[in-house]
C-alpha cells in the first residue's frame, strides 16, 4: 500500500496556496486534486489507519466502495472548482476552497463518528470563508448565520455520538438506523437531525438558500459540491432503508420548486434546485436497496457536475454584469454566447434531456428502482 491519507494532497495544496503566488500557486492548486485522485486509485479496501483514543477504537481512514465513489467525486469537483477560481486573485478563496475540499474528503473516509465530527466541523469552518470572501455586509451576516446553523448540526452529531459511545461502547461509523431502545433512540435521532441540517431537510434548509447566493461566484461552486453531498454520504452509510427518508426526500424534491419559480436571484433559484436534487438522492437512500443506493450515488455525481456548470454560468453572469436578478438581465446570448450555450447544456442535463447523463441514469436506475417498489 503506497498511498497516503486521502485528504492529505488537498490539504497540502491548501497550505501551499498560503505561501505561493502566481503561476506556481495555480500549478499546485490544479495538481492537488489530480494527485489526490491518483492516490485514491492505489488504495486498497479496508482500514487504512486505526488508533485507540480514551479506550475507544478509532478508524480515521477506512476505505470501501461507497467512500471511494464520493472520494473520486470530490476530487473531480475540486478540480473543476479550482480551474474556475484560478482567475481570482484572492488567497482566502483559494486556501479556503482547497481546505474545504480536503475536509469533505476526510469526512467520507472517516471510519468512526469522532473523526466524522471533526471533519463535519472543519467543513463549516473552512467553507464560511468562501461566503465572507464576498466582503459585503450581507455576505458577512449571512456567513455568520450559516456558521451558527452548521455548528449546531455538529453539536447534535457530537451529543448523538457520545450517547452511542456510552451505550454501545464503540464509535465506529456503521449503519446506525432509527430502531433502538431507550437513550440510544435519542442518540440516533440526534445524529439523524445533525445529518439532516447539513442535508437541508425541509424547515432546516434556510441556511442553504440564505448563504449560497451570497458567496463569491467561485465560492458557490465549492459550496454547491461538498457540504450537502457529505450529508448524503452520511445518510447512505448510517441510515439506508429508513422509510421516513423516502417521505422527507419526496418533500425536498417538491417544495423548493414553488419557491424557485418565483425567485428573482438566479443563484438562489439554483440553490432551491440543489435542495430539490438532494431530495431525489434522499429518496434513493430511503428505499435502501442496492440499486436505489447506486442511483442515489450516481445522481450525486451528476448533480455536482451539472449544478456546478449552472452555478458557473451564473457566476460568469454576475462577474461580467454585476447583476444576478433575472428581471435586470436579458439579451445575454449576444454578449456572452459561450456562456449561453453552456447554460443550455446544464439546463438540458438537469431536465434529463436525451444524451445527458441524467437521462441514462433515469433509464438505468429510476425505472428499475421504481419497478422494484
Amino acid at each position, binding site marked *: 500500500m503506497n498511498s497516503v491519507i486521502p485528504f492529505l494532497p488537498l490539504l497540502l495544496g491548501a497550505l501551499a496556496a498560503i505561501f505561493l503566488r502566481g503561476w506556481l500557486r495555480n500549478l499546485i492548486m490544479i495538481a492537488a486534486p489530480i494527485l489526490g485522485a491518483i492516490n485514491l486509485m492505489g488504495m486498497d479496501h479496508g482500514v487504512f489507519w486505526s488508533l485507540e483514543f480514551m479506550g475507544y477504537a478509532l478508524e480515521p481512514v477506512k476505505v470501501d466502495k461507497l467512500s471511494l465513489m464520493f472520494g473520486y467525486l470530490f476530487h473531480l469537483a475540486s478540480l473543476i472548482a479550482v480551474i474556475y477560481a484560478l482567475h481570482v486573485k484572492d488567497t482566502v478563496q483559494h486556501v479556503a476552497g482547497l481546505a474545504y475540499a480536503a475536509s469533505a474528503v476526510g469526512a467520507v473516509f472517516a471510519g468512526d463518528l469522532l473523526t466524522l465530527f471533526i471533519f463535519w466541523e472543519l467543513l463549516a469552518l473552512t467553507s464560511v470563508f468562501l461566503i465572507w470572501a464576498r466582503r459585503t455586509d450581507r455576505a458577512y451576516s449571512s456567513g455568520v448565520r450559516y456558521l451558527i446553523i452548521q455548528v449546531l448540526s455538529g453539536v447534535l452529531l457530537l451529543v448523538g455520538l457520545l450517547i452511542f459511545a456510552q451505550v454501545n461502547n464503540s464509535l465506529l461509523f456503521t449503519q446506525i438506523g432509527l430502531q433502538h431502545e431507550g437513550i440510544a433512540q435519542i442518540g440516533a435521532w440526534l445524529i439523524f437531525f445533525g445529518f439532516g441540517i447539513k442535508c437541508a431537510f425541509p424547515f432546516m434548509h434556510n441556511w442553504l438558500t440564505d448563504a449560497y447566493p451570497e458567496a463569491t461566484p467561485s465560492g458557490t461552486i465549492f459550496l454547491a459540491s461538498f457540504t450537502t453531498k457529505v450529508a448524503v454520504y452520511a445518510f447512505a452509510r448510517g441510515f439506508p432503508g429508513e422509510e421516513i427518508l423516502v417521505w422527507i426526500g419526496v418533500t425536498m424534491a417538491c417544495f423548493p*420548486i*414553488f419557491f424557485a*419559480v*418565483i425567485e428573482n436571484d438566479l443563484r438562489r433559484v439554483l440553490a432551491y434546485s440543489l435542495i430539490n436534487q438532494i431530495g431525489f438522492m434522499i429518496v434513493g437512500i430511503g428505499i435502501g436497496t442496492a440499486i436505489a443506493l447506486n442511483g442515489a450515488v450516481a445522481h450525486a455525481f451528476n448533480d455536482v457536475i451539472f449544478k456546478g456548470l449552472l452555478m458557473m454560468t451564473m457566476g460568469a453572469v454576475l462577474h461580467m454584469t454585476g447583476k444576478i436578478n433575472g428581471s435586470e438581465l436579458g439579451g445575454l446570448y449576444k454578449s456572452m454566447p459561450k456562456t449561453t450555450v453552456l447554460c443550455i447544456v446544464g439546463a438540458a442535463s438537469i431536465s434529463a434531456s436525451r444524451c445527458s447523463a441524467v437521462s441514462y441514469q433515469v433509464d438505468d436506475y429510476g425505472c428499475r428502482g421504481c419497478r422494484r417498489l
Partner: protein
Amino acid sequence: MLKVFYVICGLLVLVDFMVHRHIYHDWENIPAFYAIYGFIGCVVLVLIAKRCVSS
C-alpha cells in the same frame, strides 16, 4: 430568441405524434398529453407559489 423558443415548443408538440412512447397510463394516449401536462403543471405551480408568498 423568443421566436426560436416558440418554434421549438411547436416542434416538440408535433414530434409527440410521431415518436413511439412506452406508455404506463391511459392518460398518455391523449393527443399532445405531455405538452398540456407541462403547461398546466407550470401554471398551477406559479399560481400556488404566488399565493404562498402573498399570504
